[in-house]
């Protein structure tokens, strides 16, 4: 019923502005919130705008697509660690937040993130965030571990997994050696720590589906994992507990941006407003969503929802270490380090 009233309200807004129907083109990961059928149908009903999707498989691909196809996209999902780079290249348009009613609900620590705000203008609306930490098979542990060192525990040798991703591996190594993930001073220590981790590993995982299969087959006791995915896996009935270690967890923030070359900036802002709407989020969370960057949306969740129970905990929020922008040189150094570690197996 709530949805109905908001729909009517939105329709009224749409009619008042006498907006003509546009086709909005969204660039995002596949299956990541913006392309839910029920939501798009409701959005079209409310605003008249239709939404078309294009997908990318890596952040580099997303940037390349924006550079090479000017005017092709109206809303782009950008990880905050990449927003500054896109802004520096002049790919993004400032967003008029007064047109986005729900923007008021976004707390200042997200809204004023230096990656999203440049020269007092907003270049990305915080949408979702989440943690990369560890998840355990709750059948294998009497008591949940509190430290990331559990990955190195010989008791779980051959029952551990991390994602096959250079940045994530180096960040985990940095946490385990007590370093700042955004300013790693002793990369050799990280490399040595990761070299110790390799014999512990059963395999690498690359997708959520992978992870669930390995866990369901009983191949793993403990593995790195994403917060939203852990909630989904637990919801599927797998014996999975998400652990935020005392050393901290890697946190990411995803924002929605409007490209400089977009021809439907007004409609794009309406779509972003729709995406951070609490009612949309509550419904999305039932299907398994990451944590919303809109505090009002997070508050609207039922109390037992993972995103409220675990990620809403102030102690957990204090352990979040947000990924800062990374230059290409550092990224290549990490990649070379990770490849040489894998090749040595």
């Amino acid at each position, binding site marked *: 019923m709530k949805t109905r009233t908001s729909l009517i309200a939105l329709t009224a807004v749409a009619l008042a502005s006498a907006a003509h129907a546009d086709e909005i083109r969204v660039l995002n990961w596949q299956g990541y919130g913006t392309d839910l059928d029920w939501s798009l149908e409701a959005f079209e009903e409310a605003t008249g705008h239709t939404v078309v999707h294009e997908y990318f498989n890596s952040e580099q691909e997303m940037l*390349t697509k924006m*550079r*090479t196809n000017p005017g092709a996209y109206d809303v782009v999902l950008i990880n905050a660690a990449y927003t500054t780079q896109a802004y520096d290249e002049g790919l993004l348009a400032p967003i008029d937040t007064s047109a986005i009613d729900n923007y008021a609900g976004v707390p200042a620590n997200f809204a004023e993130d230096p990656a999203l705000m440049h020269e007092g203008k907003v270049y990305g609306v915080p949408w979702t965030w989440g943690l990369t930490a560890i998840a355990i098979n709750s059948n294998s542990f009497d008591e949940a571990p509190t430290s990331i060192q559990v990955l190195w525990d010989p008791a779980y040798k051959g029952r551990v997994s991390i994602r096959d991703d250079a940045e994530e591996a180096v960040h985990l190594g940095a946490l385990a050696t007590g370093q700042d993930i955004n300013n790693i001073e002793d990369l050799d220590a990280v490399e040595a720590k990761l070299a110790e981790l390799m014999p512990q590993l*059963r*395999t690498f995982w690359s997708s959520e589906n992978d992870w669930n299969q390995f866990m369901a*087959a009983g191949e793993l006791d403990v593995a790195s994992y994403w917060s939203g995915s852990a909630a989904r896996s637990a919801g599927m009935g797998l014996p999975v507990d998400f652990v935020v270690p005392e050393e901290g967890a890697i946190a990411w923030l995803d924002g929605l941006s409007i490209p400089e070359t977009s021809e439907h900036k007004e409609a794009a802002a309406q779509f972003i407003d729709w995406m951070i709407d609490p009612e949309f989020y509550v419904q999305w969370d039932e299907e398994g969503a990451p944590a919303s960057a809109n505090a009002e949306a997070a508050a609207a969740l039922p109390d037992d929802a993972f995103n409220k129970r675990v990620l809403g905990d102030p102690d957990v929020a204090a352990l979040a270490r947000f990924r800062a922008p990374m230059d290409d040189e550092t990224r290549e150094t990490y990649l070379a380090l990770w490849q040489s570690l*894998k*090749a040595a197996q």
Partner: protein
Amino acid sequence: MAQVAHASDRRRLFALLSPAYLWLTLAVFLPLSAMLFFSVLSDMPGADGGWGLTLGNYAAFLENPTYSTLLWKSLKLGATVTFFCVIIGYPCALVLAKSIRGRSREALFLLVILPFWSNSLVRIFSWAIVLRGNGVLERALNWVLPFDIRLNLMFTTEAVTIGLVHSYLPYVILTSYLALQAIDDDILDAARSMGASKLTILRRLLLPLSLPGLLAGAVLVFVPVVGSFMEPRILGGRMGTYYGTVIEDQFVAVYNWPLGAALSFILLAVVLVILGAASPALRKART
């Protein structure tokens, strides 16, 4: 050759060959030259700062020992898989061609080809189900054997080898079978009447006469296995990093097509050099 010189013959030859060459140009030459072009780019077209021509991607192979280590690892994998395919496939072809006649041969032949008709990804995932801990293989063994057994085959180099041998075995069997079948049974009867033992017949007659087929099969196995990436990734776990998986990463994960293309061409060159070095043996086998 003299007849070809006739104008009408040449025209007919041209007409008959042109579809094939047109197809080769479109399907092989153009994509390959596009990749060659990519491999000398300094950056993806459209990246900030523009792009230029460079040999830096090839230099990266020499500068970073990781790539040569992995290439060596992949070549060893190729050699191992080819070895097992030959050891298993040749006797199989020999039995099919020379010992079994009639209906049962057709049935057995069908069994050899059958895996070929299923998608390779499906085959590899079936192996994952068989090999994994507490999987089909372990359960079956534990059911038969009185003592408890843990194979731990999944996510090892052995698992990759098993998966690849199964995938490529039919090539060796098919090529060897064709070569073996072409050998006249009368020759073998003649040898036998002269008192040659079975081993002598195999060593002096069957093996040399069918060597072209066997070698062709070996080449057909070796080349794709060196560049394989899907099987190591699924079955190899943390041991499954090979030259092919690194190339795949460049295209899919890192989005560095120029480096991926350069690494592919280095692989192509290395494989060509190996085949070139082996060609005297191949040519000898053919005569």
